[in-house]
């Protein structure tokens, strides 16, 4: 028997008992969720916000591209001409009605990519378990950021100070804030409360992104990515 098959490691009958008993001393993998929250990935898709410029003008111009691209048909927009004496947005029209039905929304982020003015972005807040159907429809009153550019917290939303950080969506660099050489690459959109954040790793040398530093997201998030995709997490 020269060419013996490589011996398969087998647990045997009592191996299972040893394995299970060993786990008792191992650290727990559970996060006690409501008390302690895991940091969210930089590209997390939470609920939307409608952004403003520094001077308080709304970014939305009522073009309805978001509504057109929405695969779940959950966005309803109606534009209206800006009143000449008190314009709401810098431009011809503004979003007069803006509604998102969160019973339909699948958080695909296509609206964020479609928006030509970066008016709509997604935050990281996902804990908004409303208890009736009318609460599920977010209107401009809930979606537009407040005077400091921060998202408004509704009574049924469970998020705490600090969790709204890095709440930018991300979008094509071909949009107005992007540089030409990064065409087709993703970059962070600007928001009032958080400023314009630099493009994602590998796109720019002069960047200081809090979430990713100067390296790509894949490297930063290695602890959460399966080994099969270049990460560190065992299994699958």
């Amino acid at each position: 028997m020269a060419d013996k098959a490589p011996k398969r490691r087998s647990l045997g009958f009592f191996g299972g008992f040893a394995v299970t008993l060993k786990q008792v001393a191992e650290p727990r993998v559970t996060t006690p969720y409501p008390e302690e929250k895991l940091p969210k990935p930089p590209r997390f898709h939470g609920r939307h916000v409608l952004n403003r410029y520094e001077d308080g003008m709304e970014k939305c111009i009522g073009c309805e591209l978001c509504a057109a691209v929405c695969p779940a048909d959950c966005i309803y927009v109606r534009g209206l001409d800006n009143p000449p004496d008190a314009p709401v947005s810098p431009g011809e029209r503004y979003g007069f009605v803006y509604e998102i039905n969160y019973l339909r929304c699948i958080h695909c982020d296509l609206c964020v990519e479609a928006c030509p003015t970066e008016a709509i972005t997604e935050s990281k807040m996902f804990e908004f378990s409303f208890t009736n159907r009318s609460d599920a429809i977010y209107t401009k009153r809930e979606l537009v950021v407040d005077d400091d550019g921060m998202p408004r917290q509704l009574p049924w939303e469970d998020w705490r100070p600090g969790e709204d950080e890095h709440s930018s969506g991300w979008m094509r660099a071909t949009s107005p804030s992007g540089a030409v050489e990064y065409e087709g690459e993703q970059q962070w959109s600007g928001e009032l409360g958080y400023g314009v954040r630099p493009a994602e790793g590998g796109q720019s040398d002069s960047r200081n992104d809090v979430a990713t530093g100067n390296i790509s997201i894949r490297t930063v998030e290695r602890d959460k990515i399966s080994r099969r995709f270049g990460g560190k997490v065992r299994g699958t």
Partner: protein
Amino acid sequence: MPDPLFVNGVDLGVVVIAAVKVIVVFGVLLVAVMMMIWFERKVISDMQNRVGPNRAGPYGLFQTLADGVKLFFKEALLPDQADRFVFKLAPYLALLPALLIFTIVPIGGVVAIAHHSVELQVADPPMGILLLLALSSVSVYGTMLAGWASGSKYPLLGSIRASAQMISYEAAMGLTIATVVVVTHSLSTRAIVDSQALSFFHWNIFRLGILPFPLFLVAVTAELNRPPFDLTEGEQELVGGFNTEYSSLGFALFYLAEFMNTITMSAVMVTLFFGGPDGPGFHFVRWLWPILWFVGKTVVFLYGYVWIRAALPRLRYDQLMGLGWKVLIPFSLGWLLVVAAFRVGTIWGFGVFVGCGIAGSGLWQAIRVANARRQVQEESSPRWRQQNPAEAHLRAVPEPDGGG
């Protein structure tokens, strides 16, 4: 020896003491089941790097209570095809034996209360351990009737499995109990415990030569339908098993019965093989120490059950039946004969031991030959050859239809 409580006739005091014992044991059992479910979930989550229930009460202690309340307020569905009366009866048939078996388990020593000598167990009937066998047969009815009365296919399959399994393992269980009885000369559980109380080495596990205990453990685990023998509720094959159609209180009762049976059988194992409440005592609160020993030993077994559940995968059905009929029953029967022969005389003992060895190896040969024959038969079937083409062409058996 009869129950000393009833020796001097029955008066009011005796009745009160008996009633108090019943109520206390009933209450303690229910609380113990609650704790057991919590314990099982905590231990198994320990073994899977999880936290387990930790929301209801400190350390999630009241989780079972919360689950029970939730179940209680749910709607009790009654399937159209169900046999109404039997469907409602079955959960109680499952629960009652679990409660009743515990009555014969000695929890502590003998104490004196108001001039009455009271054994710390609900009842000490002279037929003792036979009650265990009878009642564990009754609990088969609970499972069997639940599946049958549901009027639904999967529960019926589950209950058929359950009854076949429980009946086959009951034989091995009975034979190992007979081994204990042969040594004790008495069916009374109190007498069984007392006969082990002399020293550590008088515990039945050592006196009977270790083997009956693992046999009993396996048989009882199968009898309880606990993993790795929980084929009655094999989710992959049977949806939920015999209790699929049950909801609300009926489901809760089955759940309760399952865990109460686990506790009861652990207690029975402690009684039969580990000296029951026997253990070193101390002078202060003398009556308490035996109870603590009993509870401690039982908890060890409960932990063992949870550990088994965490470690072992479920058996296949033919493996289950094979283990029961080809391993447990021959071994327990042989060991019973050997132990009985040693009671007669040493020469008899060794003689029977050798005889059992010869008979055993004969049986082993027979099983081996039968297996080999079945294998050959199976591999010559066109279906097998179709399913295993890679191996089929290595076999010398010609295609029955002459090939194409």
